[in-house]
């Protein structure tokens, strides 16, 4: 396979382009998709680049088909991915739940747009619940919430390896801001940095006779009895819980002595980090906890920090979707939680600062 990136380069790009290049660098074989803003340029750039590097693309008739054909690609042992947003993300949930049930290494790049429904094509953090717990699934998924172009590149590559290592569906949860904004990024070949791409393998159509030479490769999502289903879901739960310590990721900023803990994910971490610096300069002991994986949430790491704080602020561009995951994750912690919700709108540093200052004054 021809290498798309021969030597490490600094480039100026939009987030969607970064994702297309990352998928190339990760040796993805094929993208399946259906157009929707703001993820379109992932497809645009993939379709322009794929033929140059012997990769493929299939545009399907809708997102349901895009999701299922991606699963088909995966079953055939191809490193496959899709990208979508908002209403498309909703339609794709059936395939995403099938991936949970059948343990299929599906990789989806989600560029969140405003909701509910069609709403805006611009930005939000309103697809966290959907990415983490969508459809009739039980959340047996890994969801990376990125905050900049470098992370879009790094985590798109990582998503393929997490998927093919653990056999759960993996999401890179970006948003319309990240999709469209422009900033410099370092493009690299993962192998040149010592990151080996995990080899893929067909999950169906294996050689030999099933039952004679090998066990049947039976991928099921349908069961006859409650007991049978219960046992299967229990196995999934145990398998998922085993990987939690390996895949849960988070970052902390000035959390050691922090009294006012700001929790934010995705692009909002950028403003939260700035707010911490500014608040510290004003003598307020602020800190910031950023879940990198929304699912699984690094709750064990967050709990002691949350308990030590005087007050917690959860800031998100949604009406508490991640806050609900936080309160569930730190159950038992009695630190009061306040919120700064701006569904479908960006959150500014000054807004977080003003909110924390008010909290510190006891307002």
């Amino acid at each position: 396979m021809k290498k798309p990136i021969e030597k490490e380069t600094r480039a100026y790009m939009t987030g969607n382009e970064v994702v297309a290049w990352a998928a190339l660098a990760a040796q993805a074989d094929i993208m399946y998709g259906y157009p929707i803003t703001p993820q379109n340029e992932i497809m645009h750039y993939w379709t322009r680049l794929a033929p140059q590097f012997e990769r493929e693309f299939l545009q399907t008739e809708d997102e349901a088909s895009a999701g299922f054909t991606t699963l088909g690609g995966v079953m055939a042992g191809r490193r496959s991915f899709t990208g979508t947003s908002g209403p498309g993300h909703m339609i794709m949930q059936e395939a995403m739940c099938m991936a949970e049930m059948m343990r299929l290494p599906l990789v989806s790049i989600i560029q969140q747009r405003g909701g509910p429904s069609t709403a805006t094509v611009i930005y939000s953090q309103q697809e966290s619940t959907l990415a983490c717990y969508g459809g009739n699934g039980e959340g047996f998924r890994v969801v990376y919430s990125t905050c900049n172009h470098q992370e879009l590149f790094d985590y798109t590559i990582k998503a393929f390896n997490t998927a093919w290592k653990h056999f759960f569906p993996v999401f890179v949860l970006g948003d319309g801001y990240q999709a469209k904004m422009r900033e410099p990024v370092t493009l690299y070949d993962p192998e040149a940095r010592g990151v080996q791409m995990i080899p893929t393998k067909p999950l169906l159509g294996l050689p030999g006779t099933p039952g004679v030479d090998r066990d049947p490769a039976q991928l099921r999502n349908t069961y006859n009895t409650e007991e049978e289903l219960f046992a299967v879901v229990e196995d999934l739960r145990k398998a998922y819980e085993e990987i939690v310590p390996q895949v849960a990721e988070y970052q902390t900023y000035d959390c050691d002595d922090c009294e006012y803990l700001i929790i934010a994910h995705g692009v909002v971490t950028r403003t939260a980090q700035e707010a911490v610096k500014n608040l510290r300069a004003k003598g307020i002991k602020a800190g910031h906890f950023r879940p990198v994986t929304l699912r699984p949430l690094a709750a064990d790491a967050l709990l002691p920090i949350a308990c030590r704080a005087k007050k917690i602020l959860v800031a998100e561009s949604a009406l508490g979707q991640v806050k609900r995951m936080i309160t569930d994750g730190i159950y038992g912690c009695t630190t009061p939680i306040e919120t700064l919700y701006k569904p479908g709108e960006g959150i500014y540093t000054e807004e977080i600062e003003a909110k924390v200052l008010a909290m510190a004054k006891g307002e």
Partner: protein
Amino acid sequence: MPNRIIEAYVGEYASGKSENAVNRALFLASCGHAVTLVDLDLVEPCFCLRPLRETVEKAGVTLLAFATEDTFGLGEAGQTILPAARFALMRQGDIILDIGYGIEGSKILNLLVGAEEDPDLQVILVVNTGRPMTDTAEKIISYAQSLQRVDGILLNNHLAEETTEEFLLQGVKIGEKAAAALHVPIVGVSVAAEILPQCSKVKQLPYEIRPLQRVMPNAFW
């Protein structure tokens, strides 16, 4: 209407078309010209120049772009063109057109009344060699050939705040190779105004140097 400056800025996605079109309009207005700036981006309609209305109008530039309230209710229901923009070439004075990206974007010239016959119209390809799709002469040539018309190249090589003079000069070499193969001139080299004072070699280049004020970060959607 002699000596009119009529320029249409085309190019790759995120190549800097709007940034350069706005800067050009502001520069021409500062020289005392009557300037009309036209948002002809149908690929991403209503998003680009709209938030800059106040900035450009304060500088005396006439802006032909949808106002925010005009776009309410349109959602994604098809593409819209401002009628005044379609007939922009019939206006007096200089006209700067900001065109949507790629092949589909450049086709908008078909909708611009008088574009084919206008003797002053220059279609300028904006190129940033810091972008992987246009980082070699071969890629720029092939991209330019996919567009229906290119009359000149504006080099807008940069890596945002990480741009160095060395990077600029390397990009100029790539641009020169592409321009020669395409038989079109390099109409200018754009350089962020804040780094220009440190770029003595760039200033000696035989091209028009266009100091660029970054206005687009304020326009983001």
